[in-house]
């Protein structure tokens, strides 16, 4: 049987506000337990929530960026359940009237095609605290520092058909919220977490299969692996005559498998109702317009501009605009170095593999955009060749200074004096007299390959510093002449 995979995602993004969504506590990550838990965050008797305007503004920014309708009157509701990291016994969330309605986001697939993913809604809610399961004499410890951190939960349509598409979508959301500056996107710290709804159905069938929800997956790699292992589990289950049960599951990266979360299994009845401590949030059209006017350039707009302004291919533009930091880096290199295509290549290829090797993000790159731009200038004015540039780049990465200093101290300056090149060539040809004779005896077809040998010898003799174009020209004259 041919199976089709159906995936919908719920992405929780922590909004980058200074204070919590309903209290004046700080949202700093990693503080001592419960030192950022105020009366409101602790759910003390008699306390009341007041909405942080920045959380509402950030949600509107996201909504505008995905072409969604912004709920002109959105309402907070209580989701009631008991859990020790949920101090009030309910989570303040949004149900019937979320702040962001239906929208969409385009993702670039590996084959270069663009796919539109529907966003059902995005709503504001408060985060819960953390349960620490290390043993406190058989007890669990509760830290409520995170309780009340603003979250924007972004719910997609079940539009994705593979784990790869799901990852591409999460990456696009990740890039977007970082472009907007509304979330730091730090997945390791839980700033962006993903619940994956996965089901399968026979290819061609229109109704959906029973889905399972994989909770709280927190890296791109794990999203892909969790979905794939869950798909495999469901296929095996059904093909063995079993049935998928709708349930919540947890991905275990060590075993690369999902398992049922029994603690959440109990049929939940959340008893949503409008929170009587909060009033409907009215978003005035004028406010919305001012938010729209202040939106930064979005990824799709940037991709388009990169193609037009710099003449980049769609692929290159997409890669470079994948993150705001990378796009900014690239533009800075162009500004200094001048040649956009050259800059694109260096950023994508050499810098890309360096970052990969070091396992760091571009904002921690050991070579700054200014350094790279400065080096490109030396390539363009023939001070160094593209090949020597790699040596210079490595030296810059090793912290040996700027391109000019490295070229100087290592004596990497290209030789362009024809006299010097000629005498070097004469020496080299004399040392390879046999090959010269063979060359001269050979027919046109064979000469091509043999010419390459002499170029190699020449470059070796000049330690790569001779200007390659000049070497070509002079060598040809000497061999033919």
């Amino acid at each position, binding site marked *: 049987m041919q199976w089709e995979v159906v995936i919908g995602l719920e992405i929780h993004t922590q909004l980058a506000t200074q204070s919590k969504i309903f209290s004046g506590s700080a949202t700093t990550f990693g503080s001592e337990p419960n030192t950022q838990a105020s009366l409101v965050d602790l759910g003390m008797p008699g306390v009341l929530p007041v909405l942080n305007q920045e959380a509402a503004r950030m949600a509107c920014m996201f909504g505008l960026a995905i072409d969604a309708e912004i709920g002109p009157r959105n309402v907070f509701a209580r989701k009631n359940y008991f859990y020790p990291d949920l101090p009030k016994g309910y989570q303040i969330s949004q149900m019937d009237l979320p702040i962001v309605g239906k929208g969409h986001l385009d993702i670039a697939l590996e084959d270069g095609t663009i796919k539109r993913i529907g966003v059902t809604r995005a709503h504001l809610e408060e985060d819960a605290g953390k349960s620490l399961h290390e043993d406190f004499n058989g007890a669990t410890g509760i830290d409520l520092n995170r309780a009340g951190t603003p979250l924007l939960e972004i719910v997609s349509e079940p539009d994705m058909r593979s784990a790869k598409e799901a990852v591409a979508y999460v990456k696009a959301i990740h890039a977007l919220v970082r472009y907007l500056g509304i979330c730091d996107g730090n997945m390791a710290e839980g700033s962006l977490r993903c619940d994956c709804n996965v089901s399968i159905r026979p290819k061609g069938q229109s109704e959906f299969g029973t889905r399972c929800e994989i909770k709280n997956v927190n890296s791109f790699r794990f999203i892909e692996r969790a979905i794939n292992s869950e798909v495999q589990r469901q296929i095996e289950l059904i093909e063995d005559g079993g049935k998928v049960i709708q349930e919540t599951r947890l991905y275990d990266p060590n075993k690369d498998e999902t398992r049922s979360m029994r603690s959440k299994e109990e049929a939940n009845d959340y008893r949503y109702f*409008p929170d009587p401590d909060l009033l409907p949030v009215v978003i005035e059209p004028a406010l919305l317009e001012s938010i729209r006017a202040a939106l930064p350039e979005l990824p799709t707009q940037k991709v388009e501009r990169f193609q037009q302004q710099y003449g980049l291919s769609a692929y290159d533009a997409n890669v470079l605009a994948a993150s705001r930091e990378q796009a900014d880096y690239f533009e800075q290199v162009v500004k200094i170095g001048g040649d956009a295509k050259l800059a694109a290549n260096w950023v994508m290829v050499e810098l890309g593999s360096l970052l990969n090797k070091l396992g760091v993000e571009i904002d921690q790159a050991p070579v700054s955009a200014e350094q790279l731009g400065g080096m490109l200038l030396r390539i363009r004015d023939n001070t160094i060749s593209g090949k020597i540039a790699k040596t210079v780049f490595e030296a810059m990465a090793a912290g040996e200074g700027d391109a000019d200093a490295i070229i100087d101290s290592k004596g990497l300056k290209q030789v362009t004096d024809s006299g010097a090149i000629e005498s070097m060539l004469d020496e080299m040809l004399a040392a390879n007299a046999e090959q010269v004779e063979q060359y001269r005896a050979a027919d046109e077809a064979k000469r091509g390959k043999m010419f390459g040998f002499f170029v190699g010898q020449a470059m070796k003799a000049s330690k790569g510093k001779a200007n390659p174009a000049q070497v070509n020209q002079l060598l040809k004259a000497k061999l033919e002449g």
Partner: protein
Amino acid sequence: MALQRCDVEKIAHLARLGLNEAELPHITDALNSILGLVDQMQAVDTDGIEPLAHPLEASQRLRADQVTERNQREAYQAIAPATENGLYLVPKVIE
């Protein structure tokens, strides 16, 4: 439609209220009596009426995004039943 004992047990679980066996019949009777009272609502024609959640129908005021709270863990945990190393303690939670 009167509540049965099992319905009451279900609601009590939802509300995390530990009821003892002996109380159950009384509570079931009391709840049925209250529901009998509120069921009178069903006779009212409310077609086309918008529900009213807040009497004054005002809109939410928004707070500036400022940190106004400082650490008061010691004071707040002084009234807690069980804490250790700044954490609130509960019986072991199994996920």
